[in-house]
């Protein structure tokens, strides 16, 4: 949970900062594109997370994406297979690739790095040979199939509404299973604390669900500006569009000024109260993180105050005097961005993390969580065009996949086995776990996700060049998984973090574009941000370890 808060903080920060510098970031067009690409990369990252959890690595993802993206149009357009059959066939091939990787790694004891590196080379070469390096696409005849990637089934407002209701129902079901005194061995005060914590987190789920549903549907029950059709129509949007009926996307730009101001004015004090109460709950251990939070806030304020005007006024071909050096406006902008992203991004990214790492927040501040989420969403809806932005189809697919993957990882014995063998394969084997089979499963899942990603990427772009399609995607996926809390040593990781990690990668990329920074620096900036994240991770781990030692010693 701590890690998710940290990476989520980083995402929010990068979004906010980019918006402050250029508000076209929150325009409908940009929001739609960013969410779509985040979802596409999210799918790949979820897959590779399973492999990373076992302590392995899959370098072949990009090439599998390329191969699948070549095979699908070949089968559909050239060979005349039905779209359903073609999708099934390429998924089977992807699964077989994963099976092959898994078997080579477990039966022949080859190293994952070597096996998948060979895969990277082989599938790329094979795809190029197969297609004779020619560009492939679906043309205009397969728009029904292409809706999988470019469909816009509903707006984010509907999504919030539907998601809120689902969350509410899940929360209520979960409350029914809540049993008191789960940990009868904790001493009385700790017991009470744990009890409160558990109850609060259990109750906050349906509460957040209700609030999200209310926020999502607000423009109807408050009678605000009209949105793109009724929710029902929007849900049916996918089918309607496939029938050739246009659904308006621009009917509403901003929901309402009420939402904007109410959200902001409620959110800021809620956040402050959250921080203050968290600090009071465990003052001794909170000092360092709090100092870090205050320091970074001051730094952020300085940045906004000093750098934003500078940034906005700097044009690419200006000359600026910095100390003894004369630099171009572009270089200046880039420099400013680097400083801000790396220093402040790294620090702010760790705030939420540190709060929960050093003495968990008090019951009071935990009680604020639903309010924090709700007001945050209100502010978000009020300030951006998110409510009216359409949800890309890949986002729905990714969310469904993430939920299934999350349940698999956390609620089934197989997920537990993956985590256990990732941490300590020998101990897992000694506990009667068929570790080899589980490792094969992880590689199959990874390649299947890569296959699904490949299908969607191909449908999305509609023009596949075998030599370069999907290049480096494995590295984006691995970076997202690592940012999201997977350890390359294995045994660690959660799906939500990975998905947010993928979003951070895309938002960073988008920010670099939208702020007019040279795209040549794309890799350099992303690299530095990930490095900052990794450093924070290590530091926080040490803090957590120290706390755990103290706790163990108190127990004797």
């Amino acid at each position, binding site marked *: 949970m701590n890690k998710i808060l940290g990476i989520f903080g980083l995402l929010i920060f990068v979004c906010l900062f980019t918006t402050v510098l250029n508000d076209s970031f929150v325009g409908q067009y940009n929001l739609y594109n960013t969410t779509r690409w985040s979802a596409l990369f999210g799918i790949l990252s979820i897959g590779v997370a399973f492999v990373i959890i076992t302590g392995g690595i899959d370098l072949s993802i990009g090439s599998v994406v390329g191969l699948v993206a070549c095979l699908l149009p070949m089968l559909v357009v050239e060979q005349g297979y039905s779209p359903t059959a073609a999708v099934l066939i390429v998924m089977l091939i992807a699964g077989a690739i994963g099976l092959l990787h898994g078997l080579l790694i477990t039966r022949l004891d080859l190293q994952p790095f070597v096996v998948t590196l060979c895969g990277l080379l082989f599938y790329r070469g094979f795809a190029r040979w197969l297609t004779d390096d020619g560009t492939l696409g679906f043309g205009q005849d397969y728009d029904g199939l292409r809706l999988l990637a470019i469909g816009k089934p509903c707006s984010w407002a509907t999504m919030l509404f539907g998601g809120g209701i689902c969350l509410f129902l899940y929360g209520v079901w979960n409350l029914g299973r809540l*049993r008191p005194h*789960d*940990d*009868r*061995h*904790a001493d009385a005060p*700790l017991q009470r604390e*744990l009890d409160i914590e558990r109850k609060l987190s259990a109750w906050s789920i349906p509460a957040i669900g209700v609030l999200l549903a209310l926020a999502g549907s607000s423009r109807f029950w408050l009678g605000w500006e009209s949105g793109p059709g009724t929710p029902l129509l929007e849900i049916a949007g996918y089918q309607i569009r496939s029938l050739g009926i246009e659904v308006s996307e621009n009917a509403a730009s901003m929901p309402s000024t009420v939402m904007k101001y109410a959200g902001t004015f409620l959110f800021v004090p809620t956040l402050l109260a959250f921080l203050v109460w968290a600090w009071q709950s465990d003052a001794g251990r909170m000092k360092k993180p709090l100092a870090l939070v205050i320091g970074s806030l001051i730094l952020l304020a300085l940045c906004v105050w000093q750098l934003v005007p500078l940034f906005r006024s700097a044009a690419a071909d200006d000359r600026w005097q910095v100390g003894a050096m004369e630099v171009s406006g572009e270089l200046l902008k880039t420099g400013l961005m680097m400083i801000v992203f790396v220093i402040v991004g790294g620090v702010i990214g760790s705030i939420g993390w540190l709060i929960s790492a050093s003495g968990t927040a008090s019951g009071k501040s935990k009680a604020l969580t639903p309010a924090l989420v709700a007001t945050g969403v209100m502010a978000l809806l009020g300030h951006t065009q998110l409510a009216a932005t359409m949800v890309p189809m890949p986002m729905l697919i990714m969310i469904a996949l993430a939920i299934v993957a999350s349940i698999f990882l956390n*609620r*089934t*014995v*197989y997920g*537990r*086995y993956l*985590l*256990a063998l990732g*941490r*300590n394969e*020998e*101990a*897992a*084997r*000694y*506990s*009667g*776990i*068929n570790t080899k089979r589980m490792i094969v499963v992880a590689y199959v899942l990874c390649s299947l996700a890569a296959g699904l990603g490949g299908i969607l990427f191909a449908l999305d772009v509609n023009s596949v060049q075998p030599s370069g399609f999907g290049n480096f995607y494995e590295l984006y996926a691995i970076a997202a998984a690592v940012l999201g809390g997977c350890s390359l040593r294995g*045994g*660690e990781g959660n799906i939500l973090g990975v998905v947010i990690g993928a979003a951070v990668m895309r938002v960073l990329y988008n920010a670099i574009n939208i702020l007019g920074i040279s795209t040549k620096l794309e890799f350099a900036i992303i690299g530095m941000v990930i490095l900052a994240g990794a450093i924070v991770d290590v530091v926080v781990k040490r803090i957590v*370890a120290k706390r*755990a*030692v103290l*706790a*163990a*010693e*108190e*127990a*004797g």
Partner: protein
Amino acid sequence: MSQTPGKNPRPLLEVRSLGKRFPGVRALHQIDLTLMPGEVLALVGENGAGKSTLMKILAGVQPPDEGQILIDQKPVTIGSVAEAMRLGITLIHQELNLSDNLSVGANIFLGREPTRFGLIDRETIDRESRRHLASVGLDVDPQTLVRELTIGRQQMVEIAKALSIDARVLIMDEPTSSLSQREAEALFKVVQGLREHGVSVIYISHRLAEVETLADRVAVMRDGENAGELVGDQINHDAMVSRMVGRDVSRFYERTARVDVAALGSEQQLTPALEVSDLIVPDHPKHKVSFQVMPGEIVGIAGLVGAGRTELLRCLFGVTQPLGGSVRINGQTVQLRNPKDAIASGMGLVPEDRKEQGLVIDFSVRSNVSLASLSDKAGAGMWIDSAAESEDTHQSIDRLRIKTPTADQVVRYLSGGNQQKVVLGKWLAMNPKILLLDEPTRGIDIGAKEEIYRLMETLAAEGLAILFVSSEMEEVIAMSDRTLVMHEGEMTGQLVGDEIGEEQIMNLATGVVSR
């Protein structure tokens, strides 16, 4: 050497109130130690008493948390192994630290190779190595690869290496644990020779008989603290042991009632819980092993390190595949292709290395306890039953008295004894019929040891068959109804009841007699 010769030579090495903590353990507390020039100081104590930690600090492997180290009465900080070597302190590890792919000479000069014209000067290495090897009485060609030497000879190479850097303090950690009698005697001669040359030796050993013959002075440690010092005539077995365990020895290890299960079995025609016939363990293909364990019986396996005891348990548990023979559980012949099969037929193994094989050390107590039984209790074969998981965890915590702040504490931060109880808890959650324990009390404190003994007794009384391996003679003698002794992969004998004694076990374990 700077100290003045005389009747009262000043100490070469002094340690003052040294302290060291590890996650969850206080390894050393207020340790004082003095070492005179040319002295053999033996350091004795139970497993986990902190001997190895203290030596690692002296050798620069780990830094101390508090306290002072003085050499020639000057305070020093030993930040690295290289620094320790510069100060003349060398540690010879329990597991030898030689690169076995390199030659003897290359090992002796590893890291400080003499060069000529920028290239390694092989001739000098050869010449010098021969000289140092001769001084430890080892007649091997410096060009020989280390892996071609026996363990005993490799140890001599280590000593030669230490001498080659003019070591003044030589720390030997359990040097004889894997040596044959003859090799050990050769080693003693070398140690005595070192003393005469003014080299001080800190000698760590569990074998108290060795200590009696070799040591000028004995320092005893217990639970990370000083527990007394013995000089000259005071050095004898009982004095050492009573200080090591900190109470009257005779009362410590004692089973309330031994079961003569063999007699019981023939009376009641019981089926053995575990019956092994002519099993050929892959690590020792020359020998066939046969024995049986009755329900309710505690059978100990004694032997020296490398006798094949761990390998036998691993083979029984399906980790390795036997080359022949059969295993019957409750009269049924079983095929154990992997640990999963073994668990399915009612076995549990508490392995030798609990951090590597017993536990997922970064998992919580809850996840560790449930790991083996998870799939049995899973809904529809895949859904984790968290209620059952909690129930098992709390039962284990209660029954084994695991000291942990919550059931969700990460196991890494528990003490060794509590970690071991978590491993036991994992198997108890399975309701096993046969429990295999490999060094169940290694590295855990005395209180926890006693609890584990009591638990073994209770479980046996409930009808569990227990087979345990231990290198602690007293433990085997005290706990087993029957003792099996192994020597180099061979089952050299079986002792029942009053026959179980130190001398009998030692004779069988060293291969002196066989029956």
